């Protein structure tokens, strides 16, 4: 995989994260923002595995696993709070 292709893929993923960030800024309710963070999390797990391939380190895959697990826990906590309401 050559350097140009790596840069194109990284640019696509970065642009996607930027679009989600725009939705998080605009979103009329808190649910919209939570959905945006959920989408960003999944995108970032793919990004972390891809960067591990770019840097050629096997240890970096563990970070992706821990990241997806903990973001899942945080999102479920937010969803539980939204459900109970004020």
């Amino acid at each position, binding site marked *: 995989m050559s350097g140009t292709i790596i840069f194109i893929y990284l640019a696509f993923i970065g642009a996607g994260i930027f679009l989600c960030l725009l939705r998080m800024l605009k979103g009329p309710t808190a649910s919209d*923002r939570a959905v945006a963070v959920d989408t960003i999390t999944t995108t970032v797990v793919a990004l972390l595995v891809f960067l591990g391939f770019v840097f050629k380190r096997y240890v*970096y895959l*563990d*970070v992706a696993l821990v990241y997806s697990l903990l973001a899942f826990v*945080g999102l479920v906590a*937010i969803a539980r709070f939204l459900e109970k309401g004020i």
Partner: protein
Amino acid sequence: MMIIVVSLFVLLMLVAAVAALIFKDLMSAVIAACMVSLIASILFYFLQAPDVAMAEASIGAALITAVFIVAIRRTERFEE
């Protein structure tokens, strides 16, 4: 080449942090703060420090969010 991607992520983190300051709905502010620490974790990853990235993801995304949510539930949700 990498420096462009890193500066893009720094910019995103800055925008999310300013958003966390501005929002009047404190729940949205907590979600934005969660996102700031997620992007900080990616930046540590770029700087070749995977252990720090792991600690930042666990503390920032899970623990701090839960603590803030408990605090909001005890007080009130909307700032005036």
